[in-house]
């Protein structure tokens, strides 16, 4: 029997799959801190269903398997039977749950219907973090070779490929793109921005979602404009320049190896702080796990570009023209930076400054709805109808209600997903942009950055 699920898989070795799954489960429990998490969840095990009202996937699909505590139960059933005394005793008495390929197949499908938005955690009276348990289950699946191909191929290139990034961009192409962006900004906005590469001893090394170098010229140029205008000491590293970390979605082992690449590039360049671009999961992966895996108290500090921009705006170092953006704008909170309350107000401060018609969605901030493409699912093209019509249904309705024509989504994952959500839900007139795309339009650049009008040749 082969594993069947709705995303592409590389060939899975199915010999003694349940046995190998249990071996991986045991190894992870032995070498991590997940055992107490599973133990507490297994003891509570109430399945009261309060989470049904929190989960946007369940709200749209109506399917029982999409209720967060049912999803958690898939993992806990294995834990109880094979890793608790009671489970082992009950198995001797007969009629116990037995792990088989069918159960593994179900986990492969159902754990990837979750977008890891962790909204359900807000509702659970037992404090069970269903997102964490789904993450654990995905990690065990990954150890037996069950990983969506889109994630696996990207991480393989990032860790073992020639380019060391998820979009396979060679360093020469990065340099070409940065030079193009500098030129394009002069032509379009008549300001000089710089994309410094490999400058030793800079304060920040900048890691955006690497896909921005293919898709998001205005986000990147806006980032560079703020940094240039405020005299920041920053650089891009040519040996490692990708903020993306799909390890956050399926494997702590990969998560560790990927954040370690960021820390190593910082060390190579003699830099002090990690600056993450507009990307939710890249920010959370670095913020939460550089400390865990790269030096504890001595680990470098992690800053998101929106924190930086809000800070220089408050301190009067950055000048933005109030009311530059006149159309109605709303803001989408990426789950990975908003659920914890880390980045909620900073982007709104910036938007209220530059937009004359800013409206919020309801709910928002820590209680926001996911774009529907979280947890790595946005990279899986083959599940687009599920992502946009089920996972993104609540978000589409929220956007519609604001009447906004521009949605600011400061995250590469959310942006890609929301463009598809808008296209597939009759919101084709809505533009989805990054925060710094708008900052770029509103920046009142210092004279030193302004390019004189008219042809430059002559002299």
């Amino acid at each position, binding site marked *: 029997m082969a594993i069947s699920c709705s995303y592409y898989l590389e060939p899975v070795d199915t010999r003694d799959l349940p046995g190998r799954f249990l071996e991986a489960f045991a190894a992870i429990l032995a070498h991590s801190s997940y055992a107490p998490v599973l133990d507490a969840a297994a003891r509570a095990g109430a399945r009261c269903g309060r989470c049904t009202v929190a989960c946007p996937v369940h709200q749209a699909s109506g399917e029982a398997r999409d209720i967060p505590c049912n999803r958690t139960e898939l993992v806990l059933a294995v834990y109880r039977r094979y890793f608790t005394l009671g489970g082992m005793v009950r198995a001797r008495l007969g009629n116990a749950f037995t792990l088989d390929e069918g159960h593994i197949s179900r986990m492969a499908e159902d754990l990837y219907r979750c977008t890891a938005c962790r909204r359900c955690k807000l509702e659970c009276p037992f404090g069970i973090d269903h997102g964490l348990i789904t993450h654990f289950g995905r990690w065990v699946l990954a150890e037996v070779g069950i990983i969506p191909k889109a994630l696996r191929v990207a991480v393989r290139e990032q860790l073992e490929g020639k380019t060391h990034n998820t979009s*396979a961009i*060679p360093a020469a*192409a990065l340099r070409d793109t940065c030079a*193009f962006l500098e030129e394009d900004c002069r032509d379009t906005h008549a300001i000089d921005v710089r994309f410094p590469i490999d400058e030793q001893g800079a304060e920040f090394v900048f890691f955006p979602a690497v896909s921005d170098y*293919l898709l998001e010229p205005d986000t990147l140029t806006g980032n560079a404009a703020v940094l240039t205008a405020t005299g920041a000491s920053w650089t891009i590293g040519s040996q490692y320049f990708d903020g993306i970390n799909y390890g956050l979605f399926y494997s702590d082992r990969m998560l560790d190896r990927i954040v370690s690449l960021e820390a190593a590039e910082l060390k190579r360049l003699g830099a002090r702080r990690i600056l993450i671009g507009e990307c939710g999961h890249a920010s959370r992966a670095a913020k939460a796990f550089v400390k865990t895996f790269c030096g504890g108290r001595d680990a470098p500090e992690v800053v998101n570009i929106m924190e930086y921009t809000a800070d220089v705006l408050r301190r009067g170092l950055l000048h933005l023209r109030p009311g530059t953006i006149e159309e109605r704008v709303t803001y989408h909170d990426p789950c990975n930076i908003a659920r914890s309350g880390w980045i909620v107000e900073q982007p709104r401060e910036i938007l209220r400054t530059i937009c004359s018609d800013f409206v919020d969605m309801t709910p928002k901030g820590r209680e926001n709805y996911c774009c529907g493409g979280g947890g790595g699912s946005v990279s899986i093209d*083959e599940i687009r109808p599920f992502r946009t019509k089920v996972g993104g249904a609540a978000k589409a309705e929220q956007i519609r209600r604001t009447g906004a024509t521009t949605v600011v989504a400061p995250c590469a994952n959310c942006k890609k997903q929301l463009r598809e959500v808008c296209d597939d839900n009759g919101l084709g007139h809505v533009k989805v942009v990054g925060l710094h795309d708008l900052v770029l339009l509103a920046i009142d650049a210092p004279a030193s950055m302004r390019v004189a009008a008219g042809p430059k040749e002559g002299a």
Partner: protein
Amino acid sequence: MLTFKHGTIEIVVDEDGFMQEPEKWNEDVAKALATTEGVEELTPDHWKLVHYLRNYFLQFGVAPMIRKLCKETGFDLKKVYALFPSGPAKGACKVAGLAKPTGCV
């Protein structure tokens, strides 16, 4: 391993029909791949886009930033979608023999 056959053309592709061996690309392969994108005939504008992508790929090993593609071919995004309905990454790049873009693309 999946293969795509069209007339005398036979190439190895992934699940979405992207070439797995980009070095085997030639104009006849491009014509064959274009049929999978609903493009029956490659006009001079199609070729301009395909050759630009192909040459950039040969020089840099990856597709160019989409804005650079637009600026250097003189085609806006709307025109690119008119030529290749699945868009620059999934349509034009496929016909130009590039591998499927990975990551958040």
